[in-house]
């Protein structure tokens, strides 16, 4: 893994908290500077998103067993399709644009090496010091998470964001909350490519401190843009633009296309 040294002149706005032997760290720095972007571009082999928080991360670790899971931008971008082999998305007006273009400047044939410029990632976090195994009886106990338990640490960390040249939004962010008896991490990839597609890929990581039970759930949702718009038809016209920017409003409107659940029991001897 390539690591990027955080600039020492800028303050880390992240947080640290340890609960029942589980240490939670968030790191929040400014976006990468041009030298860091250059280093990341050559390490990744693709141009990073326009807002790239390469020094941000969220890490949950259990010192006694050595188990840890970490979320950062580099890892997530490293699994983005770098060759366009999985089928390239095109902006809604691409065909029209290509037709017009051929009239004026047909001599330009040089295309930047194709890659998934929507930065869609299936990354679920880097696990070390243990292993999560796919399991049919793994599940996140949402009823426990609905309790208004005190939140000892909460943070919301953006890893990257791109406006797709005014064609929508691609964003990867991580939320974490630590309660006295458990914690929950939500890494969310949100893509809205206007006129084309909406995607939400959620990775949740749950830990129950007393039992050492750790569950990771990945849910991928996707829908055609027009289908999402149709489902918003009952809202006032003026509210629709802001609804279309809010993944919390859209998530339930998108059909699930993939779910995986894994678990591990983390103890002293894991």
């Amino acid at each position: 893994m390539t690591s990027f040294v955080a600039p020492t002149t800028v303050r880390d706005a992240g947080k640290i908290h340890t609960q029942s032997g589980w240490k939670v760290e968030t790191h929040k720095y400014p976006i990468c500077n041009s030298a860091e972007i250059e280093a990341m571009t050559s390490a990744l082999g693709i141009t990073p998103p326009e807002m790239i928080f390469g020094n941000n991360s969220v890490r949950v670790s259990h010192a006694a067993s050595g188990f840890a899971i970490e979320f950062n931008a580099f890892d997530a971008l490293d699994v983005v399709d770098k060759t366009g082999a999985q089928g390239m998305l095109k902006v809604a007006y691409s065909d029209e644009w290509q037709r017009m273009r051929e009239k004026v400047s047909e001599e330009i044939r040089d295309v930047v090496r194709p890659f998934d410029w929507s930065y869609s990632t299936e990354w679920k976090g880097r696990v070390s010091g243990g292993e999560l195994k796919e399991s049919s009886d793994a599940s996140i106990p949402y009823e426990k998470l609905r309790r208004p338990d005190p939140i000892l640490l909460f943070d919301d960390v953006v890893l990257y964001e791109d406006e797709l040249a005014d064609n929508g939004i691609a964003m990867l962010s991580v939320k974490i909350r630590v309660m006295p008896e458990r914690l929950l991490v939500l890494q969310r990839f949100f893509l809205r490519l206007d006129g084309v597609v909406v995607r939400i890929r959620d990775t949740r990581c749950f830990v129950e401190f007393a039992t050492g039970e750790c569950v990771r759930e990945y849910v991928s949702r996707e829908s055609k843009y027009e289908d999402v718009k149709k489902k918003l038809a009952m809202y006032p016209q003026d509210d629709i633009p802001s609804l279309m920017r809010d993944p919390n409003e859209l998530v339930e409107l998108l059909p699930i296309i993939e779910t995986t659940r894994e678990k591990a029991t983390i103890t002293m001897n894991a």
Partner: protein
Amino acid sequence: MPGLPASIDLDECIERLYKKELLAESVIEAVCNKLKEQLMHESNVVHILAPVTVVGDIHGQFFDMLEIFKIGGFCPDTNYLFLGDYVDRGLFSVETISLLVCLKLRYPSRVHLIRGNHESRGVTQSYGFYTECSRKYGNANVWHHFTDMFDYLTLSVVINDDIFCVHGGLSPSIHSIDQIKIIDRFREIPHEGPMADLVWSDPDPERDEFTLSPRGAGYTFGAQVVKKFLEVNKQSHILRAHQLCQEGYQVLYDDRLSTVWSAPNYCYRCGNMASVLEVNDAGERFFNVFEAAPENAEHRDAATAQQDKGVVVEYFL
């Protein structure tokens, strides 16, 4: 040219806007209509003389724009060239564009406004300006007044017959600056063609020529393109905005092109610096780099507080 209605005093409007007060809908309508008349007579390529302070993307970060005036001098003591992207993203697009419209009307030869890709009906519906107008005025009328006026903003400025200024960059359909003059600019920004390229394209320092974007629309332009454009048009430098940079500015192609970015801590979470570029009488360029204004923190409402240090605790599932 008919004047503004007698009831509208521009100096008073400017005073109120410096205090971040909103103007009445009828006043917005009047000043936008008046500005359209004024801009109709501007060429697609406006020639100006230094000294001038050049400002990049602001994106509704009103307090940071006031910071620019505090650092660089208020109008009309300092001449300003704004490179576009006044609205969207930030919390105060309405106040920002209202003030710029009034300043341009009041000091037409000392304030120049170029059109950016966000000065468009389509883009402002997606990125916040439409929503902000509707919330602050209860309806979208002022959004219509502003976006109708956007159709009249010029596309480029040349400083001292020497520095070519544009929001985005170059276009493969434009070799000579004269070709910009014949664009019919009084319209919504199209998806394709030279007008789109001028507000959208980005430099690619790794390349020599124009390159197609993998998105299926749009170009990047390389080192040889810039060199040739400057030679053909007898210019020494290209000045543009459009791209976020952590340092607040970026200089490329052996000092032939500068990017100026003027929204510090963009979206209240990027932690980046910002700059304005001062061009002095002799045509020399100096970047003045600055940080986010302290007022931002005080005026941020709960909904956006989570985007910065004051994170709002949330029982997310």
